């Protein structure tokens, strides 16, 4: 209802600017582990902790994919989790950004030859930002999120 109204007047430059600004300042995150080693997941939690505190940029870790703007994926995608990943990706409302965290999700890393791994994340869903590292440090994760926000506002 109301969003239709917002969309109608969305051509207006000022409304558009406000919209972009708010998108930039309030990225909500949904995190999913596709079978990695837990290292990246723990570093995401560390990025929430007092030393790094990504809430100061307005980031929140959300439990439901429907609330999220940014989809953080860690780990190589294994066969069992593949359909779940696609399912979760579809449940995130537009505009959305996918961030692949860690070398496993970038290239399957050391698990390349393991038989139950069906490939890096970008073979299954489109990925916008890649954060390398095994695991990436919290600073790198926050940097990845900031880059993701940049892409989000352009979408």
């Amino acid at each position, binding site marked *: *209802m*109301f*969003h239709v109204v*917002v969309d109608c007047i*969305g051509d207006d430059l000022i409304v558009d600017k*406000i*919209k972009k*600004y*708010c*998108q930039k*300042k*309030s990225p*909500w995150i949904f995190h999913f582990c596709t079978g990695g080693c837990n290292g990246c997941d723990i570093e995401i939690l560390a990025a929430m902790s*007092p030393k790094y*505190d990504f*809430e*100061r*940029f*307005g980031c929140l870790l*959300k*439990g*439901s994919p*429907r*609330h999220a*703007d940014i989809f953080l994926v860690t780990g190589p995608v294994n066969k069992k989790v593949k359909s779940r990943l696609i399912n979760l990706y579809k*449940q995130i*409302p*537009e*505009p959305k950004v996918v961030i692949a965290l860690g070398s496993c999700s970038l290239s399957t890393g050391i698990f390349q030859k393991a038989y139950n791994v069906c490939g890096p994340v970008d073979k299954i869903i489109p990925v916008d930002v890649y954060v390398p590292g095994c695991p990436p440090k919290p600073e790198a994760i926050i940097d990845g999120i900031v880059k993701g926000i940049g892409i989000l506002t352009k979408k």
Partner: protein
Amino acid sequence: MVIIETVFISTFLSFIYEGIVRKVTARMQNRIGPPIWQPILDFIKLLSKERFEVEGSHHTFITFVSIMSVASLISTVFMFPLVGILNFNWNFILLIYLLVFSTACFIIVGLSSPSPFPIVGSTREAILFLAYDLPLIIILLYFAMNYKSLQLIPSNLILLFPLMFISFIVITQAKSGYQPFNISEADQEITAGYLTECSGFELAMFNLAKSLRVFVMVSLATILFFNPSSILMFFVISLIILFIVISLRVALARFRIDQGFKFLWVLLLPLIVIDIIKVMLI
């Protein structure tokens, strides 16, 4: 024009209160925390997001319910003496209805979705609602019978009813869904509770309703027990109350639903009754 002003100002204030809650919580946890206008940014962002169509739930209905929950809470603001649009002698009773209705909206939205998380969230909210609404209704009814109008409340009620004030703070905690009573939104157990399936516009509206709940309850506590004479006094006192609420939120863990229920009935009801009997005897 007063109506539109009130709607905008109460919306704005409730966002700022929510922002203060988040900021102070973060500072207490040794973090920097978001800026206090963060909830406004979240709200506008959610409005501009795509609304996700969930199979098996009725969108127009949920949208309607979300607007109703916001509307009922804003209506309570109309009754505050400082605004004074609605002003009947027995308006406390209407206050009870409006507060109950806003909670009912939250229960309805959870039950209207097919997924189990919102259903469990709604059930919990319904149980908790029974637990905290009975003490709340007793307090409001007692005030309504004795003082008839919000404007006639004497300003020294806090001295008369100290125990009742403490209970009111606890009820505020429960009504706002903060620890130790964030049982219906316990994201570790049931994802996001009744809001799991909401997105976009509805989520924005329900988030607004949630922050309005905090604002309304804190303001009610200020008005009922202190009856501030000026706007400045109102803000000073309500911010102090908000600070108490935040401290409780930061320092406590969450009750289980049965423990929360027991706490609210077994502990709070006697406190209120003691106060009433005490005043009657004097």
